[in-house]
């Protein structure tokens, strides 16, 4: 088998995304009156992989969803602070949420390919749904984009002969990589991943991790994970979140992955990364 990740990719038919720097400034979040995040400052540098770690319920998913304006879809949810993408506030009134979400893609914990679409159409769904699909005469370009995205997600060799099969006919790990391909096809500048491997077997997990490594140069990645080894393997920087009894979630410590794991400054960080709590 040829290594899919080192095969040269065909040139991208659409303008490729350029990795962007995302910075959160003093972010707070509420569900109703219940505050779940407070004073979160975090810079996610362009072209790097940032891992968010922390015990369950400390607000990692909430923070991630704030980064692409998905948080506001929950009834009663509200937030404070700023999120800047290359210096532009994504919550500025002049910035349409649709545009922010297109530039900042997301992969969910549970793989969710569109069940009524083929594998091929799933990859193109972002463009098609937004009415920017390729017309009849541009099938070749569409084919190139599908191949490029599926190769980036490390799925091409497994599905190249059954692109017409429904998205739901793939295994769980394949479905998750299909979702990554789908997110990559709209050429986002940032890709958010919320525990993308938590439902996957070790082999699929490894494939997804390889995928992350391969796409890191074309898109900024922010990944939530409960797997310390995974955080160490894939990320350049790490942020440790914690919530306490009467204290909303906040960042206890952030820095390069090596520092967080090898010489953490905070005792709680060292306890957590060494599996002593959480």
């Amino acid at each position: 088998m040829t290594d899919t990740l080192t095969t040269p990719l065909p040139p991208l038919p659409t303008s490729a995304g350029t990795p962007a720097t995302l910075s959160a400034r003093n972010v707070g979040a509420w569900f109703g009156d219940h505050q779940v995040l407070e004073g979160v400052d975090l810079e996610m540098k362009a072209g790097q992989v940032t891992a968010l770690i922390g015990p369950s319920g400390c607000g990692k998913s909430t923070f991630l969803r704030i980064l692409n304006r998905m948080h506001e879809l929950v009834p009663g949810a509200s937030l404070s602070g700023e999120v800047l993408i290359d210096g532009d506030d994504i919550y500025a009134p002049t910035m349409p949420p649709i545009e922010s979400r297109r530039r900042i893609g997301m992969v969910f914990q549970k793989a969710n390919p569109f069940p009524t679409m083929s594998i091929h159409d799933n990859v193109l769904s972002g463009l098609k749904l937004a009415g920017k699909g390729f017309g009849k005469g541009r099938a070749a370009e569409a084919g190139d984009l599908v191949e490029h995205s599926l190769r980036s997600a490390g799925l091409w060799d497994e599905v190249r002969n059954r692109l017409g099969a429904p998205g739901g006919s793939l295994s769980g790990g394949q479905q998750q990589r299909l979702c990554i391909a789908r997110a990559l096809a709209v050429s986002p500048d940032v890709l958010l991943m919320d525990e993308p491997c938590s439902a996957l077997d070790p082999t699929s997990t490894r494939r997804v991790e390889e995928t992350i490594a391969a796409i890191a140069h074309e898109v900024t990645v922010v990944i939530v994970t409960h797997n310390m080894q995974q955080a160490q393997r894939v990320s350049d920087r790490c942020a440790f979140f914690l919530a306490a009894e009467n204290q909303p979630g906040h960042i206890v410590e952030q820095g390069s992955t090596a520092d967080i794991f090898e010489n953490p400054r905070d005792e709680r960080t060292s306890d957590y990364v060494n599996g002593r709590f959480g």
Partner: protein
Amino acid sequence: MSTNLPAPGRIRTGGLNPDQLFHLGSAVAGSFALTWMLFERILPVTSPLGFAVSWYALFLTMYAVISATTLDRVGVVDRVVGALVATAGAVLVAVLAGIVVFITIRGKGALAHTNFYTDTLALVGPDDGLTKGGIYSAMIGTFEQVALAILISVPVGIATAVYLNEVGGRLARTVRTVVHAMSAIPTIVAGLFIYAMFIIGFDLPHWLPLLGDRVSLPRSGFAASLALSVSMIPVVITTAEVVLRLVPNGLREASLALGTSRWQTVKGVVLPTARPGLITAVLLGIARVIGETSPVLLVAGYTNALNYDPFHGPQVSLPLFVFNLARQPFDVAIARAFGAAVVLLVLVVIFFATARILGGRAPGQVSARKQRRLSARLARRQLVEGNLL
């Protein structure tokens, strides 16, 4: 089998055991004998209904008493309640089967002739037999009125369901209450509403010059379909709303996270995923109104002639045909009414069965046919691509 061992007998865990069967049999026989004695020898009255009720009451008592010889109190109560519930189920099935069998027997004479399905009553006199005349005009009327009702109710119903489920908010709760109230409106009131509103009509204010100065419809198939829509819309809304709620939220979020608008998500993801269920919603709506008589009664008019035009002139439909002919004092007319009732029943059963089959599928599940279509579409596209290269 190569082994010499006998296949192990399976232990029967369900059903009636011999003991229970014996108790049941003796209770049935004993209570029958006692009731017969009562009604034939002792009491001065005979009444079939009294007989049945006394027999059943005596049966329950005896069944309890006999069971008490081997069972404790809990066991006896269990058996008696079991018998009661089983009776309820059996009575229901018997009543339904009775209706179908009775109608079919009465309508058999009419159903046997092909002219019944292809002819109308236009030139048929009271002396003509079943070899003349038929329900063709009524079938056309039902078909056109229901089709028009679908054209009105489905867009309105599905749009409202989308509003309730995908937009929501405080107003949605009010709308939902109104929809529930609407589904409780007696259909005759729906008919009256259309009658008062459109047949009698109303004056338009003079500052609306383009529409003329008075709204007034003739009695027609279209007026009937309006009345049917009043009943159909709430059914479509309620069912479609449930179906839309079954679409996993993850799919909506996945679509929105790709940078699509809410409407694009509804159109491209939510509605296609829910499609089998939405078809069920429509079929249930059809099944609900196809047999309605009262809303149609006031507004469709009645004619024996064939009228293809639902917008002008009276138009008969199957339920109206049944209603009118069943009241006529001729055996032939009554046979025709029963024949039309059978056709109506068969239509309703077809719609419900189709709804069950389509609705049994989970939202978004891709049928074998759809899978083939997806592959074929892609193959065609790749062919085009191959030609281009």
